[in-house]
């Protein structure tokens, strides 16, 4: 397996002087293609910061972040934007879809931003929505979708195209357990197709869907473990061959 995400000695400090806060301290993390890693930790442990730095939304104070082998810190702003369009998909806890665009338009948007024609991008978006069982919701606008549907459309958008890295920040935080589980199945399925996934969660049960769980405390990686009930067990019988 090749590493899609590689974080080496990454540190992040917010503020300066007496007001300085270390959100991450020399974190090392590697995520391979097809692997789903859950990040757990208490509030303020640096989970979300790790995710945003991995996704090039923020720059680390120190250390290196490599996505698909490319060092993000040496990239220009436009190159990082291109990387996000082509290789990284985000799923946030809320505010995932752009108002004013239908579900399929939301899914197709990263492709269009990358220069794919509207028709081809829409076709690709529809294909992904069909694969995720959301074809009948394709023309609905975010206001007309339930919370669970919105998250699933967000996952569709995060995996459309050649995405290699899927970053999810509390993706089920605003959902009930049924919808939360559906979303986790989708994430798991996406990783099964070869995408590297990193998911931040508070919920140990959801973390058990991951191949590996990384524990953060005060900005440091304090433990890594593989869940006893592995994802393959959870998926057994539910996932079609």
């Amino acid at each position, binding site marked *: 397996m090749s590493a899609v995400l590689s974080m080496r000695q990454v540190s992040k400090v917010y503020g300066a002087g007496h007001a300085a806060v270390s959100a991450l301290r020399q974190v090392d993390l590697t995520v391979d293609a097809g692997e789903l890693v859950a990040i757990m930790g208490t509030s303020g442990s640096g989970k979300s910061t790790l995710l945003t730095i991995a996704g090039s939304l923020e720059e680390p104070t120190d250390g290196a972040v490599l996505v698909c082998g490319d060092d993000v810190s040496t990239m220009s702003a436009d190159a990082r934007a291109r990387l996000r369009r082509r290789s990284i998909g985000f799923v946030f806890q809320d505010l995932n879809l752009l108002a004013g665009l239908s579900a399929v338009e939301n899914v197709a948007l990263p492709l269009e931003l990358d*220069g794919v024609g509207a028709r081809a991008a829409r076709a690709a978006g529809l*294909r992904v929505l069909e694969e995720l*069982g959301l074809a009948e919701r394709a023309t609905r606008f975010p206001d007309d979708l339930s919370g669970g549907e919105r998250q*699933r459309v967000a996952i569709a958008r995060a995996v459309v195209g050649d995405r290699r890295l899927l970053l999810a920040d509390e993706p089920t935080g605003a959902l009930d357990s049924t919808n939360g589980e559906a979303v986790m199945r989708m994430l798991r399925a996406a990783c099964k*197709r070869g995408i590297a996934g990193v998911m931040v969660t508070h919920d140990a049960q959801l973390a058990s869907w991951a191949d590996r769980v990384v524990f953060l405390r005060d900005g440091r990686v304090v433990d890594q473990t593989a869940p006893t009930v592995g994802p393959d067990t959870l998926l057994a019988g539910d996932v*079609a061959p």
Partner: protein
Amino acid sequence: MTATTATPPATDRPTPRRAPGGGLPARRAVIRWAVRLFRREWRQQVLTLALLTVAVTGATFAVSATYNMASSSDATFGRADHLLQLDGGDPAALDSRLAAARQWFGTIEAIGHRYVSVPGLFDPIDVRAQDPAGAYGPPMLAVRQGRYPAGTGEVALTDAVARTLRTGLGKRVSLDGHDRLVVGMVENPRDLTDEFALVDAAHADPPKTVTVLVAGGRADLEAFRATIDGPLVRESRPGTSRTVIAATTLALATVGLLLVSLVAAAGFIVVAQRRLRQLGMLAAMGATRRHLRLVMLANGTVVGAVAAVLGTAVGVAAWLLVAERVETAAGHRIDRFDLPWATIGAGMVLAVATATAAAWWPARAIARTPIMSALSARPPRPRPARRTAVVAVVLLATGVTCLLLSGGTRPVLISAGTLATAAGVLFVGPAAIRSLAAARGGMPVAVRLALTDLVRYQARAGAALAAISLALGISVAVVAGSAAADYQAKQAAGLGNLAEGQLLIRIGRPSPVIPVRTPEQMAGLQAQVDTMAGNLGTPTVTPLDMAVVASYTDPGEPGGQPGHPAVEIGTPVADRQHMTTYPLYVATPELLRLYRLDSAAVAADTEVLTVRTGALELVNIPERRVYPKTQALPGARYSSMPNSMVTASMMSRHGWQPTRVGWLIEANHPLTEHELTTAQNLAASAGFTIESRHERASLGSLRTGSVAAGALLALGILAMSVGLIRGEAAGDLRTLTATGAPRRVRRTLTATTAGALALLGALLGVVGAYAGLASVLHRDLDALTDVPVAHLAATTLGLPVLAAVAGWVLAGREPPWLGRRRLD
């Protein structure tokens, strides 16, 4: 639910090679989203939209009006390029010159004029011999009723001439020694004040003067002039066309549009802040800064386009509605559909460009916001106020300098100075907010929190303050400017021409030659005046006499009566070559009584009593350089009153004779419209001219309207931005509520935010407006001493109080988002 696929998504990317920035597909997607957002959230921008629409409406209406209201040189030149004025006194010479002109220019059109005196009228009637189908003249002639005259016995008249001659269509009239049938009512459609009687050119009497219309270049005309012996009066069509005038109006409207765009920019900042999280999401998806900018620019363009279409439609519709009603004021016929479409189109393009430009700054700021700040909707860290204060000082200095240099007469400098001053006031905003917040110590907690939030959310508060300052600044500039204009007008005109109960009657029109009248004629005129006075109750009637040089008889106008020159008093104008003259009345006891004087109050050696100062010289007399000894005339300063009088001793010394020229009637009540109409009718029949008080256009309603408009706009901006700022601070409010803060605290927070922004905006607006006006009027600062206190108080005190009260009242209901955090 099943959700699975065995197919890797790598094949979803249809095109392997794409532009680095996404190229056209990316731009199209971003613009599509911006348009969808506008359609979805246009209510958030309704104020900006309304403001731009009003500006475009005003510009379109102004351009249409000035284009059509501007007097056209067609009124004089028809379709010709030049005109020649030839004297008809010598028919042979006239024929010779006409032949020469025809030979030189090819096609010419000659219009003959005879000036016929009519008993009881002072201005002769122009009997015009013009061919309605002439080469160049048709634009100057139109039939309103009937037809053009044909043959010696027919004539067509303009309305006023028909009224003067008390005749009409189908009636007969004796004119210029001919008995003629009125066969038509005509006019010069390009100049409705051009009054004449039209006769058949082929059967007209020899003209007194001939206007020759010719076409060709200026050089051609001058070459022709060189072939003519003696003087040749000639005139060329002026270069300024209606299109140029309309374009100039558009240029002035552009300044207004730019000012509006500054307010629009503040509106776009608020919109950008509202969309911050969505824009952050777009950036997280891989949108570049250029894409983010494009979202806001596209929004500005859409707003500008909608405003341009709506504003133009309303402006044109308004013009079409009023066009017919302004023909009298314009003095010519108006084709309501004859509009400068190219200029109007340019105005539309300008509106779109202005709105797009107004969106540029917010777009730039949003694109530079860190993605995580945008996603969490955290406002950007307030910039040091020092930086914007420096920019403000530079802009204000530039603006004031431009306005000082303009002298109030150079449009380019005035425009540049106004824009720089306005921008300078806007940049003062952040420093003003911080200064106010710095004074919060010792105030109640809710007030302190509200003022602190203004600094915390400086981007939003600064934008709102800028827009409010500008709106109120424009309003105050109109208020103070109109007060200054009133002051200057009052200084120039004193108390006006006459008091409300006064009626000045003159025999005929004011002239330096007083016709000789027989005692019987004078008795008849006196009887008419008595009749007029009788209609006004029991007024005081004061006869007015002027001193005439009886030893000299002036032959008068051709066809008019001979008379004696009236002695006048003059003051030299700046070039010392010419004089400004004023009538000099005889200081009769009755006239002196008007000024509450009697003969004893006049010094023995006084020659002239006058309100005028400076070097005074008597004119229209045989002697030269006679500088009378003057005595100041006290009392009211009505400009048309007999304000200079010559004493009896001076009269007898020079042998001048008093001659009756009019009467001053003073009623004991303001004259009514009916009384004035009756007096005018009597005066017309008697050959008098009468003068009553001219109503001075009051600018008071303009000031009130301006204050109201500025206040409404400011309140709209406050409504738009205060809610946003308080919404951002919802977390604090939740905390306050959780700790048991009563509803009063919530009310105080909103009221303080609204009141503080309104107060700062009003103060900055007043300071900016007065700085600009003082710069323009620096040579006449007295004009600004007449301070419109009530209007300024309404702006600086009333508006903040109103805003605070509105905030207090509207904040009473607990917002639905108070109990939980808002999602998307």
